[in-house]
């Protein structure tokens, strides 16, 4: 396996647009640290291309931006990229971060099953994001969405900086708690429902497998 990152950036609906755009901070950090990064943008985030790239490049860190189920991670227009019992071996031994609902429940566990030294960081429930509809023309200025996506970005950014999977998870969760505190301190500006959805992500974000895994 080689040191490097594959990142899917489908942009076929509002949420995947947010995830993909906010991934620019991850891509910047990888460049600063001279880590090779292969983006799979829009239609390139399809199953055939993902499998080809994953096998050919054999990079040790994969970041998924896309919808999911307990046994699937999806790409552009919800085409299934990885599915348990079909091609989950593509992820074995690697570090995976999936911003995909429920994927840690079953697929994540299969990726880190016996013999694998990899880890899977993801969610055992829906990954939630709140957004300000007034910012839809300039997503990176959306303060509310940033409460969710900056802590989430902390996972790959911490790994890129050389931290372990468990350290990256802790930094991310700490950042979620700080976001919650900011929201609750300004009730005139921010709805407490934002804090609730942040809590959902805090409670349901898990690290499976090798907790000491590093890129």
């Amino acid at each position: 396996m080689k040191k490097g990152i594959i990142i899917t950036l489908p942009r076929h609906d509002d949420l995947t647009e947010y995830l993909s755009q906010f991934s620019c901070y991850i891509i910047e950090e990888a460049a600063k640290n001279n880590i090779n990064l292969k983006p799979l943008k829009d239609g390139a985030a399809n199953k055939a291309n993902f499998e080809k790239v994953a096998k050919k490049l054999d990079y040790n860190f994969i970041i998924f931006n896309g919808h999911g189920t307990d046994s699937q991670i999806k790409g552009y227009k919800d085409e299934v990229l990885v599915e348990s019992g079909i091609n989950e071996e593509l992820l074995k031994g690697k570090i995976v971060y999936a911003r995909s609902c429920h994927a840690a429940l079953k697929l994540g566990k299969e990726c880190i099953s016996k013999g694998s030294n990899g880890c899977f960081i993801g969610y055992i429930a829906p990954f939630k994001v709140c957004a300000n509809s007034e910012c839809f023309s300039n997503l990176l200025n959306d303060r509310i969405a940033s409460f969710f996506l900056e802590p989430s970005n902390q996972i790959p950014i911490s790994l890129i900086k050389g931290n372990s999977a468990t350290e990256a998870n802790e930094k991310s969760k700490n950042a979620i708690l700080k976001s919650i505190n900011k929201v609750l301190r300004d009730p005139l500006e921010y709805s407490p429902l934002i804090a609730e959805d942040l809590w959902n992500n805090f409670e349901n974000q898990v690290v499976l497998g090798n907790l000491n895994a590093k890129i």
Partner: protein
Amino acid sequence: MKKQTDYKKPEISKEMKELVVARIEALAPSNLRFFIGDSKGMTKEEMISHIESSDEIGKSIVKSHMSFLKAVASGKFMKAINSA
């Protein structure tokens, strides 16, 4: 004859739905959009509609709200945010 206890309590009760709907009506501003799973960004009206129709998204919303309220009631939430 079936005993009262033989009846399985519904997973999401009518009272839970009413509570969550009331909270969303009171607390969600009109410009906020909620992304849950692969839903498009929902307005508060759309969330309430899902809850009232008891579909999978509606059930997910209610479960998530109830989980949060339990975390607050148990002290788990305050302990966590005070640790940050």
